[in-house]
């Protein structure tokens, strides 16, 4: 739960930071794009049945680590901002958190030979 909320906060920070820090238009637009996507998947991952969409944020986090070089033209500040967000969101998206309920084997059961909900 807390891992998801921190990731929501990081996504919001990426959306807000162009208004707070002196970022270039290119860096700002990149953050306007990834910020809301991170927030959305972090929100959906709060629910136990859809917890594993957190791995989408793992991918986004890894992207943030290389984005300054792939996109180019990132100042030191822009690079630090995006990479710090990338490190945090990658780590936190790997935190599974508590799963208190069972879901008949979950989504993967739909592809299994002997799903849990049929045993």
């Amino acid at each position: 739960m807390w891992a998801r909320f921190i990731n929501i906060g990081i996504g919001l920070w990426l959306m807000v930071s162009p208004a707070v820090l002196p970022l270039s238009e290119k860096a700002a637009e990149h953050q306007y794009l990834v910020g809301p996507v991170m927030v959305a998947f972090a929100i959906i991952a709060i629910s136990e049945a859809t917890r594993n969409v957190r791995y989408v944020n793992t991918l986004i986090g890894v992207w943030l680590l290389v984005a300054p070089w792939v996109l180019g033209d990132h100042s030191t500040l822009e690079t630090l901002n995006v990479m710090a967000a990338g490190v945090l969101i990658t780590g936190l998206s790997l935190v599974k958190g508590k799963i208190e309920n069972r879901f008949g084997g979950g989504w993967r059961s739909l592809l299994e030979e002997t799903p849990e909900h049929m045993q």
Partner: protein
Amino acid sequence: MASINSPSAVSTDDPPGWTYNPSAWSERIPIAAAAVIGLGIAVYLSLFQLNVVGSVWDPFFGSASSEKILTSSLSRVLPIPDAALGAISYLLDAVSGVIGKTRRWKTMPWIVLVFGFAVGPLGVTSLFLVIAQPVFFQAWCSLCLASAVISTVMIGPAMDEVLASLQYLQRVKRSGFSVWKALWGDAEINRQVA
């Protein structure tokens, strides 16, 4: 297996292998309530887009910023204003959320799937519109963001019920019955398949 100390854990309405019933009213009412709030916001915003109200309330970015978004070219891409489309989607969410009894994951899989498909695309569209606001129009719209948050918050809680229905249809298929009939709630299949 450790049982969870929630009241629904003993309910016979739980799908096989589940610790609670995703079609219980306690699961569905909050989602429907969120949809109704979203509907209210979307109706208000579409009234502005249809020139019924003259200005839009925006405590954070100012009315001018909201109105820039709501009168943008993107908001007019479709034959009806985008907020009106949102209102229709929220209405579909709310209606498909409350139709059916507490075993509807099994007795009415079709409405559960309609519900799931109604909640999903609304969230995706909202996400796109949130990205479009600063990137294309350099402006924000508080109520549009609130609507986007509501539509995103609904997705996770709605999907467990979809999973329960899909698992039921999987059991139907493995048991050799018609998935098509089961989708529409065939009573005989309901009796035969858990």
